[in-house]
């Protein structure tokens, strides 16, 4: 209580106007003494004083404000403001007088805050800032879930109907179905992303069209479904035509009326270009085994998400009782909208924020060290101030004012840097933030930057302020008389502690960066099973209206590949319904002819015979598909090695037959060859069983070209484009990319995190080494007298050097030990980003410890050498 009562009394004293301070504090002490004299215990009296002090603070602040106003505009701003202003001017003078310290501190801080603020703008946009919808926290996505695997997916239409009829937790609920369409007649033909939605969609999200009207249920009865355009599509393809609602656009070769345009930045659920009414054909609605609906709903006022979850679980049970076979293992899962939008990036950006915060902390420790050194040089000044009557609080305030000034300067420069940092970050970030969630340096983010600066200054100002207010006035004046920059062992301990903390934090960051780097190397050295260099890929889609028969589609593909084969620079022109790493995947079920068992699942793709040559996939057995495998020939397939090992263990599958039971054409197909395994989705996933069908026996409408070139594949881009256009000018050509880009795309997020964290780790390393250097240089400076005497008495320079290096090594070792312990705890946060490396990977830890240990001792080398070269005479003469 005594300490608390003193603290409260000090707070009150600070809050009071100076001219009333003596009276009030004196009265407080008087009455406390009276109470003790009257028989109260010291404890009770102190408690009384504390309550009085704390209770008086608001009145004291009002008193101060009242006086300032009463002083009027013509008068002075009041003594408090005046003395604060004095402090600021004095701090500015100190800053100008020690320009190197000022520049170093402001630069270090600005770099730290610039990085912190830029990363925070992403965190803010993704996790904090309100989504641009009406009451976004009330919007939930609903999925069908699989209880056993805890996974979730799209919804069956009859289940949706049941939910819509019976659920009472939602004020609005709407089904959605994602598809795409070809837009022609407005610039180059292009694929647009289409979202078919129920009428309740607009009330559910709480957004209205910016132009025209929203869709309603009667629109679904029109023969040609009308559409709403995204603001972006309207602007880029239709010149923001205000009369768009009286026009039609060509979607999938059909003249489609436009009823309106959605507001700018709206693309719900993901980068949607076109919204149309949802019409589910009766056949699909009745199909119990078809799942394709997305569902979004708005919670009814007063209903919490857990209430809604409970109700949906009940409905799922009812569905299950009604239809045990089909609904086996199925439930319903509710996910808040924001969680759904950011779940892929939340962990990563928080990790970055943590990493950058560590760098900032190291920077703060470094600045504290710098200011302690400057404070040590001013011991005499502080001593004199105290001697002539400045209170300790007054001296501390002075030092803190200096720190806060530095902090604000660093924050302002840092916020400016953040503008450029964010720009660079977004230019090279693979993180996909949905529309409306773009990071921006808006007011809250800038306030965060400033607040970080002030908080940092409080941290790095605290130790110097404490050091400046030690009581031993006389001792300090004497010290000042003896040496120019006298200081105590205590301050050396403070500074050593700071350096140890810096080293420990640097270890944490370096270990993180090391683990990510090892993961990345692992991934890049994974064998993908194909040669990704010099391959161009592009997707094209044949509109169903004009290419309505297999013959028409076959004819198109045949003549396209004939043309592509003649393009100069093309080595092999093939293609597939899904090339690796294109995020496309087709699945099917099959049975093996001659065996009695349940159908198995496999990946399936239709390929042009040249596909294997174009991608460099080796043939393991049998033969490759050929142009002769056409519509009139026997049905044939190739399989991959994993397929052969999984379904024909120890047997050559060539010559066996399989029946693709879920395809239209379920004629048994002869396995003619086995191709090498390829990785298809991610580098972290092992190859899956695959079946390859020949293009001429299936004639798909969607196909991804894969073209091996003799030189840079980008050189043939325009030739490939014109080859397609010559055959059909209205075909969209999308996602033209090299295969290397597709592969790199799958590790882009890891590369991003690795680059940034690596960069932060490097900064941390530099700062920590500067810290070691600075503290050793300081120690040598402090002890130059002692070292000089020892040298004069005949100590070998080598021993002096060794002694300095040894004391640095102690700091480094303690820092490394603490850091390794902290890194063991912290690296678990990385676990989900790692692959093939354990979070406690001994090699990474050993490498980091060795590197930092060596560099840390090396950083002490310069001060050590200077110590050994001290001229004893010169040192002793200065005293």
């Amino acid at each position: 209580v005594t300490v608390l009562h003193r603290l409260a009394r000090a707070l009150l004293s600070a809050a009071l106007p100076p001219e009333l301070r003596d009276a009030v504090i004196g009265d407080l002490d008087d009455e406390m003494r009276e109470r003790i004299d009257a028989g109260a215990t010291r404890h009770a009296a102190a408690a009384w004083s504390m309550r009085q002090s704390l209770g008086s603070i608001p009145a004291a602040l009002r008193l101060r404000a009242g006086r300032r106003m009463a002083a009027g505009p013509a008068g002075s701003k009041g003594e408090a403001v005046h003395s604060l202003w004095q402090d600021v001017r004095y701090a500015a003078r100190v800053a100008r007088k020690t320009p190197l310290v000022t520049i170093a501190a402001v630069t270090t801080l600005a770099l730290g805050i610039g990085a912190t603020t830029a990363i925070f703008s992403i965190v803010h946009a993704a996790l904090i800032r309100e989504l641009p919808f009406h009451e976004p926290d009330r919007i939930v996505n609903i999925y069908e879930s699989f209880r056993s695997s805890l996974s979730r997916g799209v919804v069956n239409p009859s289940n949706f109907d049941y939910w819509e009829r019976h659920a009472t937790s939602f004020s609005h609920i709407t089904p959605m179905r994602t598809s795409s369409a070809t837009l022609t007649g407005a610039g180059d033909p292009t694929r647009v992303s289409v979202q078919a939605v129920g009428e309740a969609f607009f009330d559910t999200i709480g957004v209205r069209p910016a132009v025209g009207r929203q869709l309603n249920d009667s629109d679904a009865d029109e023969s040609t479904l009308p559409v709403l355009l995204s603001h972006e599509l309207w602007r880029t393809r239709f010149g923001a035509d205000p009369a768009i609602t009286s026009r039609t656009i060509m979607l999938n070769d059909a003249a489609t009326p436009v009823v309106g345009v959605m507001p700018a930045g709206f693309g719900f659920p993901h980068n949607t270009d076109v919204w149309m009414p949802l019409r589910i054909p009766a056949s699909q609605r009745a199909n119990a085994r078809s799942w394709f609906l997305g569902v979004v709903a708005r919670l009814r006022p007063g209903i919490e998400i857990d209430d809604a979850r409970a109700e949906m679980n009940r409905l799922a049970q009812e569905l299950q009782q009604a239809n045990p076979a089909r609904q086996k293992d199925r439930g319903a899962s509710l996910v808040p909208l924001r969680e759904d939008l950011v779940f892929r990036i939340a962990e990563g950006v928080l990790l970055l924020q943590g990493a950058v915060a560590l760098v900032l902390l190291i920077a703060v420790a470094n600045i504290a060290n710098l200011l302690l050194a400057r404070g040590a040089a001013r011991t005499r000044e502080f001593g004199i101030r105290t001697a002539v009557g400045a209170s300790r609080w007054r001296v501390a305030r002075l030092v803190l004012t200096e720190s806060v000034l530095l902090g604000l300067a660093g924050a302002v420069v840092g916020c400016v840097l953040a503008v450029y940092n964010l720009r660079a970050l977004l230019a090279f970030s693979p993180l996909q933030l949905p529309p409306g969630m773009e990071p921006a340096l808006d007011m809250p983010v800038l306030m965060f930057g400033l607040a970080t600066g002030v908080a940092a200054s409080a941290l790095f100002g605290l130790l110097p302020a404490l050091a400046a207010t030690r009581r031993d006035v006389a001792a300090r004046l004497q010290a000042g008389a003896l040496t120019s920059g006298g200081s105590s062992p205590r301050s050396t301990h403070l500074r050593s502690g700071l350096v140890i903390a810096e080293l420990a934090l640097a270890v944490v960051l370096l270990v993180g960066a090391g683990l990510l780097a090892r993961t990345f190397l692992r991934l890049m050295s994974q064998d993908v099973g194909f040669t990704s260099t010099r391959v161009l890929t592009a997707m094209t889609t044949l509109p169903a209206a004009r290419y309505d028969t297999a013959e028409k589609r076959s004819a198109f593909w045949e003549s396209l590949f004939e043309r592509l084969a003649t393009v100069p620079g093309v080595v092999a022109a093939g293609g597939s319904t899904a090339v690796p790493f294109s995020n496309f995947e087709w699945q099917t079920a099959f049975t093996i002819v001659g065996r009695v068992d349940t159908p198995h699942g496999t990946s399936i793709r239709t390929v042009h015979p040249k596909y294997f040559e174009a991608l460099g996939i080796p043939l393991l057995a049998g033969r490759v598909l050929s142009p002769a495998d056409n519509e009139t020939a026997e049905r044939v397939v190739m399989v991959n090695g994993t397929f052969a090992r999984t379904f024909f263990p120890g047997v050559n599958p060539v010559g066996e037959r399989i029946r693709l039971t879920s395809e239209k054409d379920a004629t048994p197909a002869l396995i003619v060859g086995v191709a090498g395994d390829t990785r298809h989705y991610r580098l972290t996933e092992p190859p899956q069983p695959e079946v390859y069908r020949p293009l001429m026996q299936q004639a798909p409408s969607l196909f991804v070209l894969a073209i091996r070139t003799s030189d840079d594949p980008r050189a043939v881009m325009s030739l490939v484009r014109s080859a397609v256009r010559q055959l059909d000018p209205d075909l969209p050509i999308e996602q033209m990319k090299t295969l290397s880009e597709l592969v790199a795309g799958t590790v882009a997020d890891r590369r991003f995190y690795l680059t940034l964290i690596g960069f932060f780790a490097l900064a941390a390393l530099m700062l920590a080494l500067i810290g070691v250097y600075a503290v050793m240089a300081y120690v040598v400076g402090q002890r130059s007298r002692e070292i000089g005497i020892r040298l004069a008495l005949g100590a070998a320079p080598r021993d002096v050097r060794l002694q300095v290096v040894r004391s640095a090594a102690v700091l480094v070792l303690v820092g490394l030990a603490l850091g390794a312990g902290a890194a063991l705890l912290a690296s678990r946060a990385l676990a989900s980003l790692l692959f093939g490396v354990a979070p406690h990977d001994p090699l990474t830890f050993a490498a980091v410890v060795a590197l930092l240990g060596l560099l840390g001792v090396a950083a002490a080398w310069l001060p050590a050498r200077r110590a050994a070269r001290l001229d004893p005479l010169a040192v002793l003469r200065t005293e």
Partner: protein
Amino acid sequence: MGQTYLGEFEQIVLLAVWRVGEDAYGVRIRQEIEARTGRAVTIGAVYATLDRLALKRCVKTTLGEPTAARGGRAKRYYSITRTGMAALEDTRQQLARMWHGLRREPL
């Protein structure tokens, strides 16, 4: 005057200054209020009100000698002015006029 109106706590503090008389400094004023009204009052609130009363020229203030017993901190004494007495009287009359003719019903 006739226009000065004192708030309730201002009246109480001013009356306390008047009552204590010669020895009216923070501790005594605060104790007088606590003793007579029975409510807990902070020293800060007393000074904030005294400061306002000084602005309205209802009190005047003098510094005592700094004594070692108070750690060298001087006491600040307050005394009521003629203006202060007039303001108290004014306020009471204004209140009286407002009460005039009202009869309290038993609740």
